[in-house]
């Protein structure tokens, strides 16, 4: 067993785990944050996307030990309270950008990273950057609309 100490959504945490523990399972099982979903464990689907020091990564393609000393943000970090959605979440709700919700946490974290590095993206740019995340329900159209709408909201309020 090895100790993994990192910062999760602003809180320092430490757990003792087997080296083979994936970051996705560390977040879900050891830290009880089940918002991050596990889809393919091959790096294709993006359901496991979290932010590592602000950058989007596949948590299923990292061992927990590789995140030691780093800051991890998951979907649970978005809403400011239990009644107040983050603007990106609000846009997804408003544009009906989710159905089963399985891909949604990955989409939200990917969207946050996209808008952080490109605050006023074109539709083409959003489509290209979101190609890292798969959705089987919506056909992607409403998700693209939601990301563009969220971008507009974030630009207004900043």
């Amino acid at each position, binding site marked *: 067993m090895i100790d993994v100490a990192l910062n999760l959504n602003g809180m320092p945490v430490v757990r003792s785990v087997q080296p083979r523990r994936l970051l996705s399972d560390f977040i879900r099982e050891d830290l009880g944050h089940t918002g991050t979903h596990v889809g393919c464990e091959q790096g294709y689907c993006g359901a496991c996307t979290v932010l590592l020091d602000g*950058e*989007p990564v*596949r948590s*299923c*393609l990292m061992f927990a030990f*590789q995140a030691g000393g780093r800051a991890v943000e998951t979907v649970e970090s978005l809403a400011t309270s239990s009644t107040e959605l983050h603007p990106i979440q609000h846009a997804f709700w408003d544009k009906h950008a989710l159905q089963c919700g399985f891909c949604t946490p990955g989409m939200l974290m990917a969207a946050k990273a996209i808008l952080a590095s490109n605050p006023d993206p074109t539709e083409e740019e959003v489509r*290209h*950057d979101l190609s*890292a995340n798969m959705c089987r329900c919506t056909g992607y159209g409403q998700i693209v609309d939601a990301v563009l709408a969220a971008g507009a909201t974030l630009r207004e309020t900043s």
Partner: protein
Amino acid sequence: MKPAPFSYHAPSTVDQATSLLLELGGGAIPLAGGQSLIPLMNLGLVRPQNLVDLGNIAQLHGIESTDDDVVIRAMVTQRQAETSDVVKSEAPLLAHALSVVGFRPTRTRGTVVGSLTHADPAAELPIVALALDARIRLVSQDGERVVRAEDFFLSYLTTVRQPTEIVVDVAFSRRFTSWGFAEVQRRTGDFAIVAAAVAMEPTGDMRIALAGIADKPVRSIAAEAVINGGSVDEISAEKAGQAAAEEAEPLGDIHGSSEYRRRLIAPIVRTAVLEAVTRAAVDD
């Protein structure tokens, strides 16, 4: 599926890492970005008894520009190389190819050296290494050796790296004056079905490398023979593409039959060659 259990080692220097690889024997695999290794471990296809984590080795970070080369060390991520001003200006073919490797999240962890060492014949970076006359430096407890890209790749997922060696850096030549790149992918971020990377020498001669048509990246000697020593235009680019297609004996798989791949070679080579010519004309 989850990875099988392994013992974890975290050396802080290259010397410690190579010493560990020697001591642990063949059952130890170095871990860099993990974007190729961890999927294999998640599938249960690879079950190392030991992982040697290179992530804490400060010596393995950094991109350096010398008189002749752009040197990228083993732990430099694809995203760092893609966004590096040095790479964009001195090895633009590499910067462009990186932008179509996987996705931003996999490029944020995956390394340039790791992709070369993984040696998937449908990957983009190995043909960039061939086109840019890359030299790969390997270190073990016995010392170090430098291997040229054309000698580095042996076969499907196989390079000359021995289990006791670590690739510490790769040097891409800065001498090329223009470049071209063309690829067919089913979806954004996929491996190539067929891809061509072209680098133009100061003389105007070209190095033309192809992915997806053999068990390793290959240079098309036939295409180069058509182009080199003469003028390049639509007609010679077309002939070069056809020569490359005739020379190749592509292997088929579930992503593309051998016949389909063969048909893609000529237009892909033609496109990449013409792009290099156009780019050279614009820069003049």
